[in-house]
């Protein structure tokens, strides 16, 4: 598990690295060995319960995500995009949100969804194919998964414009908007347009880039010469690089970015430097483009292992605490699994019902035709 030299090809040349650790110069509050370190600009002082809560979130997120992979392997989901390895980036940022904040996810944000307190079933329904992932997204303040890469960054930028128009920024209780995207998204036009929009309208937006090193098979080297947190500066938007496997650092950095937004000081970008431990999705074969040594290197930076070490060292968690969390996670997994398995196929009529606010007569006619045809087949089978 010891640190191996990081494969040079995975790092954009322009990313400065610390000579001592061979890690990028990111904000880190907890080393991979579980040692708490200080940073001149960021600090975090949570209550003991909050610290323990982060551990609970990390473990539960990992277990629920693993169940997604298992359900896919058992034929119960069509696809699953695992977040394994990215738990700290999602829980740290997700727990930094205040109730009034709004989230625009990409499609791998199960941990943020958990941290937000939003029922996870919709994400499983989406990948099971029983619906398209719809929820009360306005009330949840957690919008729908966005499959087209970076499309959601513009929705978030527009939503944030609306927040500012509503006068809901400018105080410590103001609203902030956060949008999640990956390293691949930074190559899309929409991402760059979102930075322009958020910048020129000074919108309360945090762009949270989970740089998990891969856009399916392509590394950072094929997406940018200058890392996203530095590119943001070119748009007049402050950028900060954070250790994405450090839940304390992602919490502290995201909280600062959100507070800046809610105070009306404008957008910023957080690049969480992390690693996708699983293939892109269950349909991907990552052995074609990366090797075991690289995975070992990142196993040594596991977000949960380091956090558990630190909790132990601080007397914040003992074996019975960790065991209790494991038990709770197991129960949550069983409960979720049962609910996923109970998701039945939708009615044929459902594909027609929500296309328009006012259903055109042409669609109403097709709906009736489809239902009649289905009924005629059922009658026919009775006859036989």
């Amino acid at each position, binding site marked *: 598990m010891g640190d191996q030299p990081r494969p040079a090809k995975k790092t954009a040349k322009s990313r400065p690295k610390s000579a001592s650790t061979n890690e990028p110069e990111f904000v880190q509050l907890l080393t991979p060995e579980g040692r708490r370190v200080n940073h001149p600009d960021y600090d975090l002082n949570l209550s003991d319960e909050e610290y323990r809560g982060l551990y609970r979130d990390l473990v539960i997120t990992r277990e629920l995500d693993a169940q997604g992979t298992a359900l896919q392997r058992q034929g119960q989901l069509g696809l699953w995009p695992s977040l394994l390895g990215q738990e700290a980036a999602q829980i740290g940022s997700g727990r930094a949100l205040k109730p009034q904040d709004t989230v625009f996810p990409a499609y791998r944000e199960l941990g943020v969804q958990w941290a937000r307190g939003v029922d996870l079933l919709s994400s499983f329904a989406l990948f099971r194919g029983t*619906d*398209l992932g719809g929820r009360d*997204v306005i009330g949840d303040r957690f*919008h729908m998964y966005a499959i087209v890469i970076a499309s959601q960054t*513009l929705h978030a930028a527009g939503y944030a414009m*609306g927040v500012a128009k509503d006068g809901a920024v400018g105080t410590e209780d103001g609203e902030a908007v956060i949008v999640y995207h990956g390293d691949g998204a930074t190559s899309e036009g929409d991402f760059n347009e979102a930075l*322009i929009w958020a910048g*020129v309208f000074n919108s309360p937006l945090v762009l949270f880039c989970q740089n998990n090193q891969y856009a399916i098979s392509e590394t950072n080297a094929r997406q940018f010469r200058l890392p996203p947190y530095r590119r943001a500066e070119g748009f007049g938007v402050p950028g900060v690089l954070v250790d994405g496997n450090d839940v304390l650092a992602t919490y502290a950095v995201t909280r600062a970015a959100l507070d800046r937004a809610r105070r009306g000081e404008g957008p910023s970008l957080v690049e969480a430097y992390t690693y996708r431990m699983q293939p892109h999705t269950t349909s991907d074969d990552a052995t074609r483009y990366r090797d075991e040594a690289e995975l070992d290197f990142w196993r040594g930076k596991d977000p949960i292992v380091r956090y558990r070490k630190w909790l132990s060292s601080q007397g914040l968690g003992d074996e019975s605490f960790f065991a209790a969390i494991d038990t709770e996670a197991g129960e949550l997994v069983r409960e979720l699994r049962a609910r996923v398995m109970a998701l039945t196929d939708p009615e044929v009529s459902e594909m027609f019902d929500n296309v328009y*606010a006012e259903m055109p007569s042409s669609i109403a006619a097709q709906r009736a035709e489809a239902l009649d045809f289905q009924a005629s087949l059922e009658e026919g089978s009775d006859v036989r």
Partner: protein
Amino acid sequence: MTTMTMVKALNEGLRRVLEDQPKSLVMGEDVGRLGGVFRVTDGLHKDFGSDRIIDTPLAESGIIGTAIGLALRGYRPICEIQFDGFVYPAFDQLVSQLAKIPNRSGGRVRLPVVVRIPFGGGIGAIEHHSESPEAYFAHTAGLKVVTCSNPADAYWMIQQAATGDDPVIFFEPKRRYQAKGEVDTAAAELDLYRARTVREGRTATLIAYGPTVDVAANAAAAAAEEGLDLEVIDLRALSPIDWEPLFASVRRTGHAVVVHEAPGNIGVGAEIAARLTEECFYSLEAPVLRVTGYDVPYPASRLEDDYLPNLDRVLDAVDRSLEY
């Protein structure tokens, strides 16, 4: 009754929307102090301020994408795409996001966004300024697609488009922008999704929309001098199409000619021909004919008179149908 140009009618219609609906916004390139390159938003910035009349960065995907976000926040954006040929950078946001998010949400989210697009040729413009991309959008479920052909319709239709809860692609025939017409600003509102019979007739049915309504009406007037009694129908809505008036007319006349500027291949006219064949088969005396742009990129402007459907081509098609 007031006489005004289509530009003025749209401007007055937008002004009423902005007055009546505090959440409505106008956004696009140069829509603010300039008043838009066609002056459709002239004076709105002065009267409603930069908070509601928003000059956007020059990025069409950004315009539509942020309009979606604003709609999710409860606003009612009316976007301007400066020219037809500039809409394509926004294609994903229009067809995969704006059109599909309400359905994706299971009907829990509505996106009341209007996208105004000046379209069509006939103004001697350079490339990308004369196109008719309506079929792309009419093909996309979740969008409504409409086009006005005269100032009165423009005045009322833009208000109706901005009042509904579905996304509407609103095509404005730019070569009719300066044509004047009577507008009754006090009249009961028409229904923008209902086709309009421009002229009643018994010999054959001309079906047109946007800029070709005037072409068809002129053709019918010329044909009348030769004793032909042509019916002219303005579709107004391309998605959903108001079919019943078309079926009723064609059952009466037995002849149908569809006229549009867009290329004929896989176009709106093809769908109309197919549906008329399905619904009016025993009434038809001839195949449904189409007079459209050719299946080539919009030509250099010195050739556009040869590309665009005109009076002679329409009358020729009517003759072919009647002689069939």
